[in-house]
């Protein structure tokens, strides 16, 4: 017998749930250690955060990025090759993430090998050699990669967008160019090392590990001569949002990459959650209005999304898509129409119910691994958000009214405040 396929099975709305928090310890040397033990696979991720913002003025573009990259290029005791060979021989993977507000060193490791690989990070932070020949190589690779990136319309559009909304001289606003690498010297990069060394260290450990593994990590961490400085943060002054349209010329392109958006507050702002709701409806998920209109109805693009990015001192909102050249104007028109609709009419209850349930389900689904649980919590710790932040988030998802959502579009998305970028020649 066929089941009744015409009617959807009954379902339960998703209730708010507890997000596991991390265990926290302050070590004798000032290191803040956070950990979460869970999962089934005996592997772990350990991430070291250096709370040192990128202070680079125009003159020193790339100083922070290259200083962080050089950490794995050899120490007083080990050459770059020896260091990388050692990490690989433990089955571990090392990742360096130079960032605007802070940078991090990440190790993915078998849990039983943590005790062997953590000391390498100490060496990187205490006695990196800043070898000249390795430096030339790193510069060269970085320069070559940037040249390849500059052939991508998406890269050009994003770079131009951030430059426009944050200003070319703000660390949030500039993107490293191959010419910046030509300017920078080893001396200047090396001079940033003491600043990194003086930085306070936050360490996040997650995965499935034994008490012995944890004790060993703690023992190794206590040997670090960690700093205590937070360093000055970046400036919080940005250009006033205003409408502009910029075409970043690049010939030979089949598609253009579009960016529409503006500078915005960060995750600590009282309007953040309602804005997140508005963003979700507009372009935050596959069922969003932009995706349904431009992709599922008109077939203009493979995908279109809107996003909110949150930094320490600000954030931004951006809509992005890659589109056939001939359709670029039409896509920009449709984007404008969807924003205007969001401003003009409150969202209907059925659409809102879908979005609420989708967001809660997707939030639950983003917390299924120990790594994800640590990652989510780390944003609370590093951005000094309230401890009940996720409860507040779930509450907002369940209760934000259609009028409040409409108000967000009216207050923040007036077209006179939006920057438009067309990456690639029309």
């Amino acid at each position, binding site marked *: 017998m*066929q*089941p009744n*396929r015409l009617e*959807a*099975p009954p*379902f*339960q709305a*998703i209730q708010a749930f507890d997000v596991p928090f991390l265990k926290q310890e302050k070590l004798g040397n000032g290191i803040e250690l956070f950990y979460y033990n869970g*999962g*089934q*696979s*005996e*592997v772990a991720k350990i991430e070291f955060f250096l709370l040192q913002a990128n202070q680079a003025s125009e003159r020193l573009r790339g100083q922070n990025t290259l200083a962080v990259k050089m950490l794995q290029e050899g120490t007083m005791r080990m050459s*770059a*090759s020896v260091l*990388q*060979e050692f*990490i*690989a*021989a433990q*089955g*571990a*993977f090392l990742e360096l993430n130079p960032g605007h507000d802070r940078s991090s060193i990440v190790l*993915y*490791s*078998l849990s039983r090998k943590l005790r062997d690989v953590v000391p390498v990070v100490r060496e990187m932070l205490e006695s990196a050699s800043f070898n000249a020949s390795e430096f030339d*190589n790193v510069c*060269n*690779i970085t320069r*070559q990669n940037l*040249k*390849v990136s*500059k*052939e*991508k319309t998406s890269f050009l559009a994003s770079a131009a967008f951030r430059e426009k909304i944050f200003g070319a001289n703000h660390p949030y606003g500039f993107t490293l160019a191959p010419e910046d690498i030509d300017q920078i010297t080893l001396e200047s990069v090396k001079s940033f090392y003491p600043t990194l060394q003086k930085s306070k260290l936050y360490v996040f450990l997650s995965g499935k590990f034994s008490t012995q593994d944890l004790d060993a990590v703690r023992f190794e961490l206590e040997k670090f001569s960690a700093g205590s400085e937070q360093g000055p943060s970046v400036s919080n002054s940005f250009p006033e949002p205003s409408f502009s349209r910029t075409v970043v010329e690049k010939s*030979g392109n*089949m*598609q253009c990459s579009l960016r529409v958006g503006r500078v915005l507050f960060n995750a600590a702002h009282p309007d953040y959650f309602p804005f997140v709701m508005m963003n979700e409806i507009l372009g935050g*998920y*596959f*069922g969003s209005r932009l995706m349904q209109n431009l*992709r*599922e*109805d*008109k*077939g*203009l*693009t*493979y995908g279109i999304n809107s996003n909110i990015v949150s930094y320490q001192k600000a954030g931004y909102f951006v809509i992005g898509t*890659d589109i056939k050249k001939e359709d670029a104007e039409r896509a920009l028109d449709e984007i404008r129409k969807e924003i205007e609709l969001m401003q003009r009419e409150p969202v209907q209850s059925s659409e809102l119910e*879908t*979005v609420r*349930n*989708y967001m809660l*389900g*997707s939030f*639950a*689904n983003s*917390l*299924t691994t120990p790594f994800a649980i640590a990652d989510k919590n780390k944003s609370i710790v590093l951005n000094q958000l309230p401890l009940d932040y996720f409860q507040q988030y779930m509450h907002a998802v369940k209760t934000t009214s259609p009028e409040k959502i409409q108000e967000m579009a009216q207050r923040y998305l007036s077209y006179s405040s939006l920057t438009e970028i067309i990456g690639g020649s029309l």
Partner: protein
Amino acid sequence: MIQYEKFTLSNGLQVLVHEDHTSPLAVLNVLYNVGSKDEDEARTGFAHLFEHLMFGGSVNIASFDEPLQKVGGENNAFTSPDLTNYYITLPSANLETAFWLESDRMLSLSFDPKVLEVQRQVVIEEFKQRYLNQPYGDTWLHMREMAYTTHPYRWPTIGKEIAHIEQATMDDVKNFFKRFYIPNNAILVVGGDVAVPQVKALAEKWFGTIPAGVPYRRALPAEPVQQTPRRKVVQAEVPLHAIVKAWHMPGKLSDDYYACDLLGDILGRGKSSRLYQALVQEQKLFSSASFFNMGSHDPGLMVFEGKLNKGVRLEEGEAAMMQALEKALQSLNQAELEKSKIQAESTLLFGEVELLERCMNLAFATNLGNTELINQEVAAIQAVQLEDLRRVASLYLKEECSNCLWYQSKQAEAAQASI
């Protein structure tokens, strides 16, 4: 060890259940045993275009995505040369919604002409976005065509050319559905906060009544053994010259598969690998260098990929690469075999962290003909000996079986010409 239970419905649908009650979430994954290798050479890209159509409404349900979003679920899908895989993650309390949606589109699609027209355009834009509007984006269009003369790995999943996607008709869509989207050509994996009896009942209820189809018997032409090296030069507006060189290797079920895989890791996985050390770190001829295996079911490829530094000529780069390769193969040692094994172990374990990945891996192994392969991989990796590496190196990495692509930068050529 990944635990699972397996049963088969009377219509031939294979079902696997993997319980994990850590979070109140469930995964429903359906793999169809059809990939781009099952396409006709004159109508490539179809398996992938079809994957898009699977989201355009089924016989009883107008929209696939919306009802799922309404119950807090997410979904996606992908197509490869070997298979097509659809997956849903949702709160376990709403598991039945996933059964309802997924079974209805196995029963029949809506075959709405508008969906075909729109998704045809979407896929054409995807083709451009991912393959044509990217520097080096068409590399594998060239490589596949050169390395395969006969086997349908000759074309990429996205298709050989946009024209094939433009020509697809609704009749093609219907025939494809009838031929491949049948319960006896599919594998269902349900994982997470679920129970075996519950899954048995739901599978029977929603999938049990879908009629079986004519079993698909795959009979693909085997790629003949390559006798002479092949080369191709392409020119493009890219900033750097690049070299891609590929050698044929056996398929996933071959005894030599893991030896080839570990050999590839030793040669070109990460910064401590032989070719990276020689070409990037020491000789500084390349700005990137890697060596990997394509991981295909049928006999696949071992591949070197590298980008040349400014001022280095392509012939110089290839010669240096071949020299470094030869040197590495002559001096393979136990320590690097151990390194590649522990890296492989680590990668396997990291790959089992996510519930969704475990469910997919169960489906992939089952599709290869033996679910238990998933728990035998560690032993297969451990069993590889140094002499296996040497043997597969001399067996497969032969010049006459190689395919080399010079991806020439017009800019770099112009600069060299003006010197």
